[in-house]
C-alpha cells in the first residue's frame, strides 16, 4: 500500500514525493514535539550564554538574550505550521464552495463573485493582510483570518476553472439525465475529479502561507513576542549578522526547508496525477 503510493503508474519510484514527504515529516514531527518538549525553554534567558556559536549543547547556537535557538526554531515551526494549515484549510474550503457554485452555474452570480475576487486579488496579499490586521488587531486568530481572506481568490480561480471544464463533460450530462440533484452533481460527481489538481494548489498555497506569515512577523505585525516565529527571529537576527551569522541562518534555512518540502510534495502529487492519465 505505502509502496504503491510512492510509485508512479509505471512502477518507478516517485522521488519528488519521497523526498517531499520525508522533509515534511521532519517538519511535522518537530512541530508536534514542540508542544510537549523542547531541549531548553524557548524563552529562558541567560546573560552568560549570549551569542554562543553552535555546539552539541546548543546545536543552532544561542541568541542575543542567551536563548537556545533550536528550541525557539522548534516552537516557531509549530506556530508557522499551525497558522499555515488553518489558512489553507479556511481558504481552500471557501475556494471549493465559491468556485464550484460560480463555475458550475455561471451567469450573473459568477460575474459578480469573480469581480469581487478580482478586486481582492488586486491587492498584494501582505498589504491586504496588513489592512485586515490593523482593523481587527494583532493576534494569531487575526493573522489566520487576514491571510485566509488574501488567499481565497487563488483557490476560487482554480476550482472554478476545473468546474467550468467539467460541467459539460459527457458523464456530467449523463448525471443530469439520471436526475441527480445539483448538490450531488457538484460534490459527488465533479469534486472528486478535481482533487489531484486541488492538492497541488493546496501545497503551493501552503508554501505561500508560510512565506506570508513569516513576512508579517518580520514586519512586526504577526504573532507577538515573546512567542517565537521564524519571521520575527529573522528580523531580530539581522542586527547581528556580522557577529552571530548562525542566528539568522537557523530561521532562514528552516523557511527554505519548509517551503522546499511543500514544493517537492506538490511536484510529486502532480506527477502521480499524470501517471493516472
Amino acid at each position, binding site marked *: 500500500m505505502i509502496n504503491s503510493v510512492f510509485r508512479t503508474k509505471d512502477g518507478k519510484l516517485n522521488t519528488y514525493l519521497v523526498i517531499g514527504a520525508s522533509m515534511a515529516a521532519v517538519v511535522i514531527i518537530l512541530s508536534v514535539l514542540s508542544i510537549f518538549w523542547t531541549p531548553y525553554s524557548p524563552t529562558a534567558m541567560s546573560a552568560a550564554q549570549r551569542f554562543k556559536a553552535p555546539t552539541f549543547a546548543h546545536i543552532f547556537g544561542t541568541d542575543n538574550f542567551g536563548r537556545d535557538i533550536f528550541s525557539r526554531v522548534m516552537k516557531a515551526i509549530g506556530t508557522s505550521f499551525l497558522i499555515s494549515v488553518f489558512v489553507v484549510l479556511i481558504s481552500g474550503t471557501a475556494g471549493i464552495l465559491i468556485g464550484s457554485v460560480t463555475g458550475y452555474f455561471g451567469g450573473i452570480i459568477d460575474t459578480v463573485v469573480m469581480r469581487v475576487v478580482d478586486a481582492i486579488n488586486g491587492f498584494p496579499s501582505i498589504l491586504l493582510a496588513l489592512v485586515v490586521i490593523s482593523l481587527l488587531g494583532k493576534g494569531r486568530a487575526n493573522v489566520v483570518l487576514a491571510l485566509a481572506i488574501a488567499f481565497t481568490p487563488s483557490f476560487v480561480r482554480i476550482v472554478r476553472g476545473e468546474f467550468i471544464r467539467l460541467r459539460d*463533460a*459527457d*458523464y456530467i*450530462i*449523463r*448525471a*443530469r*439525465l*439520471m*436526475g*441527480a*440533484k445539483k448538490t*450531488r452533481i457538484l460534490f459527488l*460527481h465533479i469534486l*472528486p*475529479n478535481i*482533487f489531484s489538481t486541488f492538492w497541488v494548489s493546496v501545497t503551493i498555497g501552503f508554501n505561500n502561507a508560510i512565506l506570508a506569515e513569516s513576512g508579517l512577523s518580520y514586519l512586526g505585525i504577526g504573532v507577538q513576542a515573546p512567542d517565537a516565529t521564524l519571521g520575527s527571529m529573522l528580523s531580530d537576527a539581522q542586527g547581528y549578522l556580522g557577529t552571530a551569522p548562525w542566528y539568522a541562518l537557523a530561521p532562514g534555512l528552516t523557511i527554505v526547508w519548509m517551503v522546499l518540502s511543500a514544493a517537492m510534495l506538490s511536484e510529486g502529487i502532480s506527477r502521480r496525477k499524470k501517471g*493516472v*492519465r
Partner: protein
Amino acid sequence: MIKIENLTISFDDKKAVSDISLEIKPGEILGLVGESGSGKSVTALSLMGLMSHEAVLESGRVTFGDTCLLKAGEKPDEKMLRSYRGKHMSMVFQEPMTSLNPTMKVGPQVAEQLLLHAKDRYPDAQSRRKCVVETFESVGLKEADSLYDKYPHQLSGGMRQRVMIAMAVILHPELIIADEPTTALDVTIQNQIVRLLKEINERENNSMLFITHDLNLARRICTRLLVMKDGKVVERGDTEKIFTDPQTDYAKKLIAAVPGRVKHPEIDINNSTGNKILSVRDLSVFYKEQSKKLFGGKINRQVVFSAGFDIYEGETLGLVGESGCGKSSLCKAILGINTNIKGSIENKTVRPQMIFQDPYSSLNPVRTIGWQLEEPLYTMDVLDKDIKTDKKWRKEQALKMLERVGLDESYYSRMPSQLSGGQRQRVSIAQALITKPKLIFADEPVSALDVTIQDQVLDLLEDLQQEYGIAYLFISHDINVIHRVSDRIMVMKDGHILEIGDRDKVFEDPENAYTKELLAEP
C-alpha cells in the same frame, strides 16, 4: 518495386510489428486494413523512415527499387531518405486540420516541395506558383489561383485534404501512402476524396498504399489487401477474394462484422407497437454565441429549424447527417440539456437516457464501475426511498446489469481507466439501461469502436431493445450502420429535417436530391 522484408519494429521491448513483408507493385493500390493498434501506421511510417525515436528496428529492411532505405542494425541515412521523401514517395495523413501549418498560406506550403526537390525545374517563384495552381486544379480545387494565398483555417476539411493531396502528388512520386485519408471527413466529402485518389492513381499510374480501418472503403479502392492483427499480417490476397472467401478466422470475423446493406429478414423485426412516446413539433434550437463585434453582447444562433417528428415505442429512428448539421443539438434540446428552444416537445417516457460517442469521456474517471451503475438507481425518482437506499439491492441490480451487457462481476470494483473502449461502451449502455427507460438517444455510440467491437455492441443494443422494448433515436454518420439498425430514417442538413420515412423507402427511393447523394452506394 517497393519492398518491406521481414520487418520487426519494437517500442520498449514490445513488438509493434513483427516479421512483416510486403511488396507494392507499380500502378496498384495496396490496402492495409486492421483494427486500431494493429501496426498499420507504424508500417507506413517505416516506409518513409519516419518512425519515432523510441522505435527500434529489430530486423528486416525496406527497399525502394534497388536502393535500400532502411536496414536493421544500420543507422538510417537521413540525407538519402530526405531525397526520397516528397520526390519519390509522399504521404497523406488522416487529420487535415493538423497536418497543414496554420501560420503559412497553403500555396507556399505546397510550393515548398518544389523548392526542396525541383529547384532546377522551377527556379523562380512565378513558375512555382503556376505549377502549384495547376496541381490544385488537377485535384479538383476551384478558384485555385486565389486559393494559393489563403490560410488553412479559411478552408473546409475537404478542401484541406485536397491541398494535402496536391502536396503529395505535385512531384509525381512513384508511391503515395494514404493513412486513413478520409476518416476525419463527412460521408459525401469522403466519397469525393476516394474518387479523386482513384483518379490520380489511374492518371499517374503510381502505386498507392492505402491504410484504413474501414473495410467497405478498402473494398472499393484497393486491388490487393493485407489484413493485419497485433502487428502481424494474417492474410493477404486480391481484395475480392478476401471478401468472398476469407481463409483465416480473423479475416472471416472481420469481414462478417462489416455492416453491409444486406437485409436480414430474421433480424429485421420492427418492434414498434405503434404507441407514440415522443412527439416533437415545430422545434427550433438556439445557441448563445458571443457577437464578433466589440461590445456586441450575445447573439442567438439558430442550429435547428422547426423540426417535427414522432418516435414510437420500441422502434429505432435513425438520424443521419453530416457533422454540424444539428443532430446532437436536436437531442440535447429534447433531453432538456439545452433549454434555449422554441416549439413543443411532448415526452411520454420517464427520464430518457443518452449514450455518447466517446467511451473515454462518458464515464466518470474517478469512480468505480459499480458506483456509476448504482448512481442512477439512487437518483431516480420512480421508486420509493426504502428500496433505493438499500445498498444490497442496488449492488444486486448493478451486477445483474453488468452480466446482461457481457461483463463479469470483477468489473464491479474496477476503475474506467482499466477498461478498453468497447468495455467502457458496454458500461455506458448498462448505466443508461439500469433504470429501464423506454427511450434512449444514442449519439454515434459505435463510431469510436473497432469493426468487430462495433458489431458486438450493435448486437447488444438490438438484443436489449427486444428485451426491454426500448425506442432508440440512433445517430450515426455511417450509412451502413444506420441501414442495419433503423426501422425509420430521418435525414438532416444544416438544421433542417429533409426527409423522414421507412428505411427501405428512404434507401431505395429517396425523395430528396441530398439524401440520394448521402445514401448513394459507392
